């Protein structure tokens, strides 16, 4: 199973919205609701931000949202803040776990 495809980097200014895409196949992203997103700051452990495509764990700000269309899932961060600058990974949890390659979010 191949890694999911994410853009290597995205950027935005404080207050703006950015979206990160995650493309898989009908056997993973497109076929099931088991898509999640993780945030990782340098030197830190990953943190779950979105699960089941659209659900936010307790404590995750509402400005983080998830969606899916066909074989592509997306993470959208609205009202960008400096602390959002991090690496973001999507993940499909169908059977085994498959991660995307990661996207570096830069807050300008």
């Amino acid at each position, binding site marked *: 199973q191949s890694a999911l495809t994410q853009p290597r980097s995205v950027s935005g200014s404080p207050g703006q919205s950015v979206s990160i895409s995650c493309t898989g196949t009908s056997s993973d992203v497109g076929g099931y609701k088991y898509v999640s997103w*993780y945030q990782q700051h340098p030197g830190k*452990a990953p943190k*779950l931000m979105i699960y089941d495509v659209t659900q936010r764990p307790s404590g995750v700000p509402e400005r983080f949202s998830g969606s899916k269309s066909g074989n592509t899932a997306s993470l959208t961060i609205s009202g960008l803040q400096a602390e959002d600058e991090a690496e973001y990974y999507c993940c499909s949890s169908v059977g085994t776990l498959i991660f995307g390659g*990661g996207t570096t979010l830069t807050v300008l």
Partner: protein
Amino acid sequence: EVQLVQSGAEVREPGESLRISCKASGYTFTSYWINWVRQMPGKGLEFVGRIDASDSYSTYSPSFQGHVTISIDKSLATAYLQWSSLKASDSAIYYCARADSGYGVDWGQGTLVTVSS
């Protein structure tokens, strides 16, 4: 408060064995799976495998099958990841995570493994 505390950094030579640990607290250990995830230097996350803490049933990513072993000790609420013969390419940070419906909801701080002659 849920906590996963991993063992400290390790340095080994190629061919040596190693076991790293992940001690859980703050929840019922046997009610969740534990995932193990690798992160090579400057690279992304890779799923290693996972174990059901209720019955020790484990599954592995094909990339790691046969090279690592995941186990638990219920009495210590601790999960383990072990190698019988390390390679230089095993050098990485390894994270454990409490898994709820497959999702890593709580993570350990990571264990750096360095394999070098």
